[in-house]
């Protein structure tokens, strides 16, 4: 258990987190914080089940047409997937660190960690677009009726691409949403809103970002490695 010491300079204007007051319908700020975290976890369960739909479709189609999925997986370059996995894992680490920095009132490192996370998010999307989506789509490796790749072997390969784009696309959407949340946290952290007495938003946005990471931890082997 670390002890938290806010640095009070006598006479100086207190930072905004020091004057934080919980909303009136809560009895204590601790209750409010617990509830926010509980709510976020409940929301994360809904996100997991949302992706559950994609995973379920993947499992069913894979069991029905394993050859199509073997072929599909071999079109993807595992090295790109590996780089993206590392990028996301690092971003997850920096988010966890930013929560710690908020708890310890390390304002500079709070912002620095958030910025590193956002850079990782951008890197992830850029890698995804330039090395995966754009080349693949231009070769006609596209879902459903867009499919025009002439060297396919299994008639169900368009379904593989359907699952691939739906899964990674919805995941990318969550990257954007998570990055949006973190940008908001970053902007507010420049105003000194987050500190040992108030880091709820940092923590809950961080939880959301970890979920993005969690989903990718499963998508990566399912799409790139299982052959």
């Amino acid at each position, binding site marked *: 258990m670390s002890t938290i010491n806010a640095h009070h300079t006598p006479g100086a204007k207190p930072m905004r987190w020091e004057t934080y007051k919980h*909303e*009136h*319908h*809560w*009895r204590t700020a601790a*209750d409010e914080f*617990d*509830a*926010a975290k*509980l*709510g976020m976890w*409940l*929301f994360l*369960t*809904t*996100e*997991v*089940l*949302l*992706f*559950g*739909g*994609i995973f*379920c*479709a993947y499992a*069913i*189609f894979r069991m*029905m047409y394993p050859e199509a999925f073997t072929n599909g997986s071999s079109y993807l370059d595992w090295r790109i997937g590996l780089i993206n996995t590392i990028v996301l894992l690092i971003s997850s680490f920096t988010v966890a660190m930013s929560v710690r920095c908020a708890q310890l009132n390390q304002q500079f490192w709070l912002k620095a960690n958030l910025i590193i996370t956002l850079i990782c998010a951008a890197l992830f999307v850029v890698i995804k677009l330039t090395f995966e989506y754009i080349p693949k789509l231009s070769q006609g490796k596209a*879902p*459903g*009726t*867009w499919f025009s790749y002439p060297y396919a072997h299994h*008639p*169900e390969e*368009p*379904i593989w691409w*359907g*699952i691939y*784009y*739906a899964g990674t696309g*919805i995941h990318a959407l969550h990257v954007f949403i998570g990055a949006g949340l973190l940008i908001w946290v970053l902007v507010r952290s420049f105003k000194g809103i987050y500190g040992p007495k108030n880091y709820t938003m940092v923590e809950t946005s961080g939880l959301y970002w970890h979920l993005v990471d969690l989903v990718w931890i499963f998508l990566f082997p399912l799409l790139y490695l299982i052959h």
Partner: protein
Amino acid sequence: MTAIDTSHDHHDEGSFLDRKGMGLWSTIWDWATTVDHKKIGIMYLFAVLTMFFIGGVAGLAIRAELLEPMRTSADGATTGVMINFGSPVQDPDTGEMIRDYTVTPNAAGNTFNRMFTLHGAVMVFMFIVPAVPASLGNFFLPIMIGAKDVAFPKLNLFSWYIYVTGSLFGVIGLILGGADTGWTFYTPYSIQTDADFWRVTLMVMAAFILGFSSILTGLNFVVTVHKLRAPGVGWFDMPLFIWAMYATSIIQVLATPVIGITLLLLVFERLFRIGIFDPSLGGDAVLYQHFFWFYSHPVVYVMILPGMGIISELLAVHGRKHIFGYRAIAFSSLGIAAVSFLVWGHHLFTAMSPLASMVFSALTFLVAIPTAIKVFNWIATLYKASIALNTPMLYALGFLFLFSIGGLTGLPLATLATDLHLHDSYFVVAHFHYVMMGGTVIAFIGGLHHWWPKMFGRMYNERVGIIAFALVFIGFNVTFFTQFFLGTQGMPRRYASYVDEFQIYHQISTYGSWVLGLGFMLHLGNFIHSLLAGPKAPPNPWGGLSLEWETESPPCAHNFHHEPLIKHGPYDFETVVPPHCSEQDFPLPKQH
């Protein structure tokens, strides 16, 4: 050690409905930006009742069409468009493609398909699912556990706006001609029909958006029940309505995201043709049905569980007796929530392998256990109770009768052999109307009467309420009991025309629907009259013991002037004189 901030005790504040001298526009602005769960609950109430009206009109239109065996609407243009907003059509004279802005009478079959889709989609997604949790639940859940508000008030308001946005999508889809897929949006038909029109897509997006509203409400309630119970309100000190809302919220949180991804993929399917649910592009239509019913079966319990919670309150308060088997009822709510996730396959009996069908059939029978536990406990509560036959109590008794019919007719549908005969027939239609309407809607109307004085501070006219109940009860049974006969004799659902021998049943059913409609209009008139000229309601007109009766009617802005101190349980009618009541009005039983 710190003192609780006592500055939040509001001694001088008025009712939450007070306009405090604000003008019209500032009142509207005040309501539009409110984070007060009571105001949000009332806004939800008006929104869902509006949707109930739209869905009800569509239902009456379906019954009107079925009055005659042949099509009664004119067979007009065959474009399938009711109102054209510049959709491209071929000019019959020149053969050129032109933009059409006319209103054309539509082919009757198409209109009928759109009507029952409208009825189903509006009633399910926009009325029954949010009806009780979002209106009565929002208003009373925090009060009944002694809280000042729900856990996340801003999220609560946000979810109302999401609900309105979703409903608007549905209404726009309706104005553009409406979907003809049925409320289940089964693929591949829902991908192919009206492929170059927005209306089906809009209806699917409406259901998708409404799902978010449902999730946020459920999430809010779970956290509220966990974290905001007043000191002294333990888990087993909560009214059973709260238990039911808690079980409902768990289902909402765990099941709704799956319909989210399903409908999202369906929108992708319609807009981009990605093929996952489209067999002609290599996809799997049965997968869609699994996805859809993984949500839509549990959501049946999202509809009925709050109704069951209301009934537990009504029977105890208006019977002036301690609820029988408190824990059994509480745990059976959770039991129903758990079982609800195991039975969705009974909607696909004819699409699945025999093994899966048998497993799902066996699991489906499990639902009967917790449900029967509730019904037996309610009956036992009524035993030797001092029953006051007012409108809420009549609705509670009506619920027991109708819901039992609805529940028991579910058993032949869960049995594989009989289901092959009965599936997709009017027997199914009658069964789920007995459960959804005879269960949820009846309980909702009963609960609305029960809590109306608390919500608006006005009494309704009891005599009119009882007459309207009689009309609703008789009309409902005439409308839907005949449909059991129709179903067993082979009338399939979703058909606009039928063979002559069915006409007598269809006519009786249609006449019943008019009585039903009349009953609801009478209720509406009664409520409007109550708002305008009803006598002022006392704080505790029924002698209830749960916390909402401790505060005045309507409650003050923060529900209680002081944090409530719990002195008795919600059902201790035998030992406690109700708050704000005299012992003359609510005498305690003689102690032996």
